[in-house]
């Protein structure tokens, strides 16, 4: 059933992702929605697969575009309200309000401007006094934005969704919601593929595991590892998610493999009760060894990795525990591809200068293989698709490296030219000497002797 509440947009879809970012749809959010109870309002664009996780049969969906409303209307037990948030008033309050797309796509192009805070006030007005709120807040200073070029404005940005009333971090958000009588019971640093609570982020033993988990889906990797190391992973998260209002406090963390929690013994375990491996990532250890120029350690680590069952797992997805055991966190592919990925990380990370040039990906892959004692020709190194976006940083590194290699190649070209000239000179001198010697009596005798020997050899072969 579709209710046109006013302000609806006739030719518009937030669900198809063509007018702005894709709707909230990260599968790691599903367990949060599974806790929704009573009358549920889902405000803003949410992927249909996420909606499937809501157990309640009293669900109201608020969308702006008519095509989205029509697409969702066929869902059983669902009421679709199509229009702008401020028109959704006068209804009995909801027990659960879900706004995991944030507040920026709740008002339509037909609506008057409203500040972030006014929009929140309107949303909170729909929540019952003992109700539950699931809210996302985009971090406008998130690490994904730090190195990105200014994006071209999307269709949905008829005004830029930013104003002074928008909380700039979890503290401000907690204060705002507490003041509204909806205290936050849990908040997460929201990365693609991972929601990380404070306890998980505060435990240094989990750093390697979190690095591996985050860089598998998010980027830029060097900022993620840096933020984790410097205890800034919450402050610089791409977004935050808040669970507010009475009720269960929610899991400590959610990742693609499920929940991360402490077991009765205080150990961190994954959803299936397997303990979380503790240690550093192999890639982190390798890069640290590069920095210290600890070549023997580098060879030892590379060799141990390439001789282990984790040989085909990218180094960023292998944890090395205190006993030096490898714990792969991703399925294994071809070993040479894992080496090439490492080479790419080293080139992009500006470590290529550690090896004689040309230190392009294929050459470096072959050299890394050599460090493990394995013979590999750069021409046999398969190309692998680049896992990350190429930012200006990577392009600048590549340009500088290539410019350096070109200058070196030119200098070497000149050197070889000089070498050839001197060898030519030497050759000419030797030939002249040869001609002079051949004209002498001993020279002629030697010539005759050589001819005779050749003739004998020819006859013998024949």
């Amino acid at each position: 059933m579709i209710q046109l509440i006013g302000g609806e947009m006739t030719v518009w879809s937030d669900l198809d992702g063509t007018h702005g970012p894709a709707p909230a749809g990260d599968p790691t959010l599903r367990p949060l929605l599974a806790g929704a109870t009573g009358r549920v309002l889902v405000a803003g664009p949410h992927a249909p697969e996420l909606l499937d996780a809501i157990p309640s049969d009293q669900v109201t969906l608020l969308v702006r575009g008519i095509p989205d409303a029509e697409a969702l209307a066929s869902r059983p037990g669902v009421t679709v309200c199509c229009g702008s948030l401020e028109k959704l008033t006068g209804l009995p309050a909801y027990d659960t309000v879900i706004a995991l797309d944030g507040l920026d796509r709740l008002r339509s192009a037909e609506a008057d401007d409203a500040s972030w805070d006014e929009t929140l006030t309107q949303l909170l007005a729909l929540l019952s006094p003992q109700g539950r709120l699931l809210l996302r807040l985009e971090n406008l200073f998130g690490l994904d934005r730090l190195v990105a070029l200014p994006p071209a404005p999307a269709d949905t940005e008829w005004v830029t969704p930013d104003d002074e009333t928008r909380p700039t971090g979890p503290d401000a958000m907690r204060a705002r919601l507490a003041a509204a009588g909806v205290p936050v019971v849990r908040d997460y640093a929201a990365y693609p593929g991972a929601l990380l609570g404070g306890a998980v982020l505060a435990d240094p033993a989990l750093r390697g595991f979190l690095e591996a988990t985050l860089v598998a889906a998010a980027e830029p990797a060097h900022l993620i590892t840096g933020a984790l190391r410097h205890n800034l992973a919450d402050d610089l998260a791409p977004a935050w998610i808040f669970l507010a209002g009475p009720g269960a406090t929610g899991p400590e963390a959610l990742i693609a493999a499920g929940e991360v929690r402490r077991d009765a013994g205080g150990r961190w375990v994954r959803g299936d009760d397997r303990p979380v491996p503790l240690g550093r990532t192999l890639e982190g250890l390798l890069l640290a060894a590069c920095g210290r120029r600890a070549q023997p350690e580098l060879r030892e680590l590379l060799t141990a990795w390439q001789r282990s069952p984790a040989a085909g797992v990218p180094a960023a997805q292998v944890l090395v525990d205190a006993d030096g055991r490898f714990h792969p966190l991703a399925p294994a592919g071809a070993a040479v591809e894992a080496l090439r990925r490492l080479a790419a990380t080293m080139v992009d990370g500006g470590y290529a200068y550690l090896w004689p040039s040309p230190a392009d990906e294929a050459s470096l892959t072959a050299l890394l293989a050599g460090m493990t004692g394995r013979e590999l020709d750069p021409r046999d190194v398969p190309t692998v698709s680049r896992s990350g976006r190429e930012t200006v940083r990577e392009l600048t590194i590549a340009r500088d490296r290539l410019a350096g290699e070109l200058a070196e190649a030119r200098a070497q070209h000149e050197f070889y030219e000089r070498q050839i000239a001197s060898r030519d000179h030497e050759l000419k001198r030797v030939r002249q000497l040869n001609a002079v010697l051949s004209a002498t009596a001993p020279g002629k005798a030697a010539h005759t002797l050589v001819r005779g020997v050749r003739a004998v050899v020819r006859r013998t072969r024949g």
Partner: protein
Amino acid sequence: MHHANHYYGHSHVLARYCGLDDTDPPRLHGYLQHGWNIGDGLAPDHEYTPGVPSFLWSERTRRRAWSLGRRQGYVVGAPFAYLLAMDPLSDSDQREGTIWYPFHGWEGQHVVGDHDALMAEIRRTEDGPVTVCLYWQEYRSAKLVRQYESAGFRVICHGYRGGWWKDLDPGFLYRQLAELRKHKRVASNRLCSAIFYGALAGCEPAVYGDPMHLENEKAAFGGHPRILREWASLHGPHPDPVAAARAAVDELGADRLLPPAELRRLLGWPMPSSVPDAELTGVLTR
């Protein structure tokens, strides 16, 4: 790439280690350090071509070279250490006496000093038989050889260093290692490659006697006085052999040797026709 790469049969030893024909080593794509030194690893008059790497013996040398603006250094260890890795020491080595390397000049250089006084000091210090190893220039001087022999020393020469691709002597290091393994002690009047080689080859090292000097000797990178200051513990007739062996491992990069596959790749050398480990990896189809 540079004629000095073939000094003392260094490239020949590396070719053998890499499984290649060591009678005619391929061109080596870089500059190979050919002697222990306190500068950037290469000769003071070495001309660098940008982008051509220097293959250095030790991490300490690489750091020093880096500080001097030589960024293209890569530590591979000394060829002598590779030779020793291929022919390891054994308990059955019969060792006796001292092998003594008087400080020498290189082609075109002349040492100024009193050989008689030096011989007297060697006699006073060493209680076993002494073999004196002369550089080929000095060895050609029948007078000097006689002088040492008449003092009761055995006189030998390891061979030519070679240069400009002529007079190459692939057997140089082999002869040196064979001699070192026959002696209990290695000594010289200056700390030099031979002392580190000896220490690595199981000899007790010693550095004593008039250090002599070269005609017009230039004190590059602090010269002899700096060697005395920085490596003071290796000087004297009886330095601590354990510390000296450790210093030899560091200075010759003996704990940083490369696997053949890595070395071949760095030096720009081809793969040997049969490489068992290549077949094992399954990376190569040929």
